[in-house]
């Protein structure tokens, strides 16, 4: 085991300290100039070559220990990964080649783009000293130190560092210029060992104009001013690997956290009030994590920087984090809070697991991601409540299952494929070559797996383990700690499971095998019958292994049976694909139905049991109620059981399950139950909202027999609208649904907005959308509903409200779009006037007018984040597709152009992508390609490609006007051009796979056999020049985690070398 781990890292030296000095920054030329100095300790005897990572840099000179102009070679194979003359255009060969190139420069394989040849004179010195040392002590060879200084510059970086330079010369625009690191590809902006398992201490020195502020990883130790130039010097005493070194330069405004002096927040000029509001809570998660882990954060301070156009919303670095400026929100906006706080809590969790304790290799990515998300969710659970936590957990699980079923299997350990013929999918590869969508879902799965481990070993022990890891890592940060102890700063799946097995007696290996090393998740189909004679529940569970992405699950599962006498849990063991269980029942069928029924929560409730099967004391059954297994569940029980479960069970997941199931049972009883739950104020708001949707669903499926108003509508009228003057106000709160629905609707006006109760606000905001989905017998939205929505918009009055109604307004516009139905109105007339004034349905016309008004008004008086504009654009798109209004494509071009707010741009681009999918418009396709190639906002490019992957114009070589050689060449050259942005390249490759498959696209003419042979993979014979490694020295540096382990490893090594 240890040997294998050893082999993973085959670098021939150890980096103890690195100095990064940026001596000049120019925003006009978009360049950086500087040098870096690495302090290296060789691990091998004949140390003659140093391999470092560096891309898109210009290297001027290398100096080693005062030996100037040392010979070096600089070669980036990823640039030439695709040559234009490769006529094959198939992904299989491309992927093979890409993988080989990644290995060729992989620092963990001892490789790199920059090869420095150590001059002979220095080598001799070393040999001399080592021979003298060898006499005394074998291990005492650490005093040979190489100081490698590299002068470099970075010009017009495509990735790694992003320069934000507004075009105009206004004062505010000049002040807003800034630059920042875009991700964890450190090699893109300075020469380094770009590995997650090479932590070192850092000195970062940056010289900038006086007006600029520098924020970098580490503690600011010195700041000197000289000739209008300011030099910031940071020192990071906690060892961190190069990918987690962050930098941001700009005229930032800052605010120090009022509770903790260690936290400082920075933002662009003009946003200080938002910054203060958004970051006011940050000390809470920090304190929470420290208390939870019983360990303090190892960085002396923590900085949050909010910048524009970052590549992700939240990028954590050592002792700092970079966020998208869009996360800032004023105190008047309600819904932004959840997301922003979660992102910030996540960045902070990374200061413990992620950046401080890092992954050993990409194969352990899941563990660190999972741990950080796990900590984040523990915090959000505390901050936003258990219901919200469970809801998010369930959503994550559904996402994971959906992805496994529909897209690709998720294997979390990212193991390299053994044979290259196994490439069946672009995501089935090394960690750095995954598409962003895959990584996103994999992160969710990683979180669920860490949670499973937590369940398996218990929360308390889990915390002990995390505490242990933190403590071990902390000792490695001490000043006099040996370099070898730094291996404690990174963990792997194996080391983690070892720690678990030493601290507990439990072995998580089986769990890891099931969920990490293999992909797939089980699909359980269950049903039950009650045998009165024996008083047992006969439960049958089947595992469906035939569908895609499924996997047989063996292990224990919790079944919770709610009986008349209370709730009882049973643990069963799943062993076969079809298993039958007999669960003893604790209750007798009783005659006296008045008695209260105890629930799992400890409450006792009265239930109306009249409809219950008098022969069966089972109220409902739940399988795996606490989401302990990643599973897809399909459980059969009678509609009465589901109604009961929805009405009385207090667990929201159970209620969601029941709601999902009740969609299949449209009946009067269901309708009543849904109405009651919608009404009950002690229900979680998301349940009530979902209830509204299901109610609409039921109403639609019962459209022919439906009588009366939709309960949702009358609920909304009752709660959010002013009543007639004839009705006393006390009547409002107590009266039941029926007698109020009789009031004349036009007399009701929605109350002036009061969003002080956020749960009610969410309900008020979302319910109109659910109502708008109602359809009558003719499959159109009833005019009553449309009028209702227009009244809401008309009478919306926010002047007395403390909160902004921007999202409420945008939600009302979304509701309008929900009313649109495709009723076969396919007017082919090109006469626009005729269409708009005569053919078009009056309600559609009304909606169209309203959208234009809102869109224009939002331009004059913008809403927060232009959310109203975003909704309007979506409706315009829908009006175009469904109602056939010929919307000019220029409208979307206008909103997609650079200079608009990025969320609006994203929506416009998504619409354009969907237009391609539907209309196959070559010009739009060209426009989107241009955006992907040239747009300054990288995040937008990512998002467009991801959306293209979801909505490709065609799949798998389908016949389509866009499926032509031009598209192939265009996409191919895009893949070729994105040499520096792996993520975009990976996403593009995924798109290529979706559109053309892995082999040569069908639309291209087939190649001659002879030709194919001629195209030799000239790169096949790339031979790595990995130097021999002295295993003893390696073990000295790498294996010092546990004394026992070291001994074991040493003895193993000794035996193998013999």
């Amino acid at each position: 085991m240890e040997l294998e781990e050893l082999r993973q890292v085959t670098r021939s030296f150890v980096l103890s300290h690195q100095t990064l000095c940026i001596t000049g920054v120019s925003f006009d030329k978009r360049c950086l100039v500087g040098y870096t100095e690495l302090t290296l300790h060789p691990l091998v005897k004949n140390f003659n070559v140093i391999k470092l990572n560096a891309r898109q840099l210009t290297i001027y000179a290398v100096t080693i220990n005062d030996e100037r102009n040392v010979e070096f070679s600089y070669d980036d194979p990823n640039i030439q990964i695709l040559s234009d003359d490769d006529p094959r255009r198939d992904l299989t060969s491309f992927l093979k080649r890409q993988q080989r190139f990644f290995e060729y420069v992989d620092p963990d394989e001892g490789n790199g783009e920059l090869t420095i040849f150590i001059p002979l004179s220095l080598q001799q010195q070393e040999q001399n000293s080592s021979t003298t040392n060898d006499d005394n002590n074998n291990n005492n060879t650490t005093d040979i130190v190489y100081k490698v200084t590299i002068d470099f510059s970075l010009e017009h970086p495509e990735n790694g560092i992003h320069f934000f330079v507004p075009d105009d010369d206004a004062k505010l625009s000049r002040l807003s210029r800034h630059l920042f690191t875009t991700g964890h590809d450190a090699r893109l902006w300075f020469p380094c060992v770009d590995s997650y398992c090479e932590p070192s201490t850092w000195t970062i020195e940056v010289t900038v104009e006086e007006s600029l502020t520098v924020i970098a990883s580490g503690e600011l130790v010195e700041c000197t001013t000289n000739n209008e130039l300011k030099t910031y010097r940071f020192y990071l005493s906690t060892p961190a690997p190069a990918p987690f070194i962050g930098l941001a330069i700009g005229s930032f405004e800052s605010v120090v956290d009022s509770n903790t002096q260690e936290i400082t927040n920075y933002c662009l000029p003009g946003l200080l009030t938002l910054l203060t509001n958004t970051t006011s809570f940050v000390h809470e998660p920090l304190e929470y994590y420290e208390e939870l882990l019983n360990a303090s954060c190892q960085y002396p301070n923590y900085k949050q920087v909010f910048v524009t156009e970052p590549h992700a919303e939240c990028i954590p670095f050592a002792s700092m984090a970079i966020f998208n400026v869009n996360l800032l929100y004023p105190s008047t906006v309600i819904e932004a809070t959840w997301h922003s706080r979660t992102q910030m809590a996540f960045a902070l969790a990374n200061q413990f697991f992620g950046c401080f304790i890092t992954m050993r290799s990409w194969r352990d990515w899941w563990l660190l991601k999972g741990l950080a998300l796990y900590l984040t969710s523990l915090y959000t659970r505390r901050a936003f409540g258990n219901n919200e936590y469970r809801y998010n957990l369930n959503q994550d699980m559904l996402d994971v299952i959906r992805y496994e079923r529909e897209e690709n299997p998720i294997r979390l350990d990212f193991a390299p494929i053994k044979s290259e013929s196994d490439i069946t999918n672009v995501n089935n590869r090394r960690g750095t070559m995954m598409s962003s969508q895959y990584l996103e879902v994999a992160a969710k799965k990683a979180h669920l797996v860490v949670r499973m481990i937590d369940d398996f070993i218990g929360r308390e022990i889990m915390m002990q383990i995390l505490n242990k890891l933190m403590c071990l890592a902390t000792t490695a940060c001490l000043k006099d700690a040996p370099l070898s102890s730094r291996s404690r700063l990174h963990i792997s799946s194996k080391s983690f499971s070892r720690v678990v097995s030493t601290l507990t007696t439990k072995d998580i290996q089986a769990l890891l095998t099931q969920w990490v090393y293999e992909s797939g998740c089980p699909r359980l189909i269950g049903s039950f019958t009650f045998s009165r004679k024996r008083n047992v529940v006969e439960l049958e569970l089947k595992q469906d292994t035939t569908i895609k992405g499924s996997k047989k699950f063996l292990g224990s599962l919790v079944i919770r049976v709610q009986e008349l006498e209370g709730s009882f849990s049973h643990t069963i063991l799943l062993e076969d694909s079809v298993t039958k269980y007999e669960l003893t029942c604790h209750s007798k069928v009783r005659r006296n139905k008045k008695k209260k029924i105890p629930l799992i929560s400890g409450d006792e409730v009265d239930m109306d049991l009249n409809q219950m099967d008098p022969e069966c004391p089972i109220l409902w059954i739940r399988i795996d109620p606490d989401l302990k297994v990643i599973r897809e569940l399909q459980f059969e029980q009678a509609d009465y059981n589901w109604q009961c479960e929805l009405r009385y069970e207090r667990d929201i997941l159970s209620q969601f399950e029941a709601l999902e199931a009740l969609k299949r049972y449209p009946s009067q009883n269901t309708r009543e139950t849904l109405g009651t739950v919608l009404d009950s104020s002690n229900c979680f708001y998301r349940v009530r909202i979902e209830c509204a949707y299901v109610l609409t669903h039921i109403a639609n499926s019962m459209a022919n027999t439906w009588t009366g108003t939709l309960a949702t509508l009358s609920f909304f009228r009752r709660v959010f609208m002013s009543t007639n003057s004839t009705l006393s106000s006390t009547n409002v709160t107590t009266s039941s649904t029926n007698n109020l629905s009789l009031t004349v609707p036009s007399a009701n006006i929605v109350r002036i907005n009061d969003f002080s109760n956020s749960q009610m606000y969410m309900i008020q905001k979302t319910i109109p959308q659910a109502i708008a989905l109602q359809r009558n017998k003719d499959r159109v939205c009833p005019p009553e509903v449309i009028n209702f929505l227009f009244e809401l918009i008309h009478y919306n009055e926010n002047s007395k409200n403390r909160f902004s109604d921007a999202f409420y307004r945008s939600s009302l516009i979304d509701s309008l779009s929900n009313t649109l139905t495709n009723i076969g109105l396919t007017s082919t007339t090109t006469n626009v006037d005729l269409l708009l004034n005569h053919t078009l349905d009056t309600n559609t016309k009304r909606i169209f007018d309203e959208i234009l008004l809102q869109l224009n008004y939002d331009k004059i008086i913008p809403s927060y984040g232009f959310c109203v504009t975003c909704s309007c654009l979506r409706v315009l798109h829908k009006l175009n597709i469904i109602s056939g209004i010929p919307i000019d494509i220029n409208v979307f071009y206008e909103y997609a152009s650079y200079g608009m707010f990025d969320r609006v741009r994203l929506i416009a681009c998504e619409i354009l992508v969907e237009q391609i999918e539907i209309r196959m418009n070559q010009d739009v396709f060209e426009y989107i390609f241009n955006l992907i190639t040239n747009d300054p906002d990288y995040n937008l490019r990512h998002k467009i490609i991801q959306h293209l992957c979801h909505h490709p114009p065609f799949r798998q070589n389908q016949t389509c006007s866009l499926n032509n050689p031009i598209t192939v060449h265009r996409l191919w050259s895009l893949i070729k051009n994105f040499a520096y942005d792996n993520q975009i390249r990976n996403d593009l490759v995924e798109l290529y796979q979706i559109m053309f498959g892995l082999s040569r696209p069908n639309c291209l003419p087939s190649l001659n056999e002879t030709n194919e042979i001629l195209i030799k993979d000239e790169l096949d014979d790339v031979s790595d020049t990995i130097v021999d490694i002295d295993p003893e020295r390696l073990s000295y540096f790498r294996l010092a985690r546990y004394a026992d382990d070291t001994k074991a490893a040493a003895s193993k090594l000794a035996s193998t070398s013999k």
Partner: protein
Amino acid sequence: MDNTNTDNPYDVLFERSLAVIIREYGFDNIELSAYHQFLDISNTILRRLLLNVKNFMEIQSRTEPCPADLARSLQMMNVKLSSLQQTYNHPIKHRLRSPDRQTETHPMKLFRVTSTTNNTSRKHRPIYIPDFLPEFPDPHTFISSETYADLRKDYPRVRHLLADQRRALQRSLVKFKLQTNEKLSVINTHGTNINDYYLIKYTISPLPYLSALLPQDQMESESTETIEDETVANISHRTKSLSATDDGEM
């Protein structure tokens, strides 16, 4: 009004109500001594009346007076009940206008900017002008025309008005912007038709996030709030000043 010997709240109240009655009869000013005489007379009359009522009550061996007692006492004091009826039915000519009656009886004066927007000093004419002469016209009546706005204030109507105004504002603002700015046609007209569907063309801003993250829509309400606060303050100030002038004139 003389305030030196009026510690008793009853006296203060009595004096004031009498003053109001006098004023309702059209006396804008009165000499202090005459007023005191009035005060004494009415006091005495009332006292007398109450004494009589008390006596009657005791004769009838009751503990609480009833209307019949009052009627008999008034008769004893030579007041004809029919004349009381007449006084009650016949309204005082110069009664202060209550806002309700004003809207009903004088719709012409509705639009007239009275105390709400006008300075109080302008409203009251000097004493030397007899009251049968018409009021001074408001300073800007010459630009106003007759309106028949319905000022009845029930909740739905107010909301309706507010919503209408807000929507009209939105519409006209958009219309104005469309006329002054460059615009973009929403409908793909294929170059044939002219249509009415336009969007305001966007002017590219170098820092688009500023306008998005610092929205203005909430500002609007804050400013209206301050205005409303101001109006409330104005109203209370005005009522204070009103009572002050009344006092001074009495």
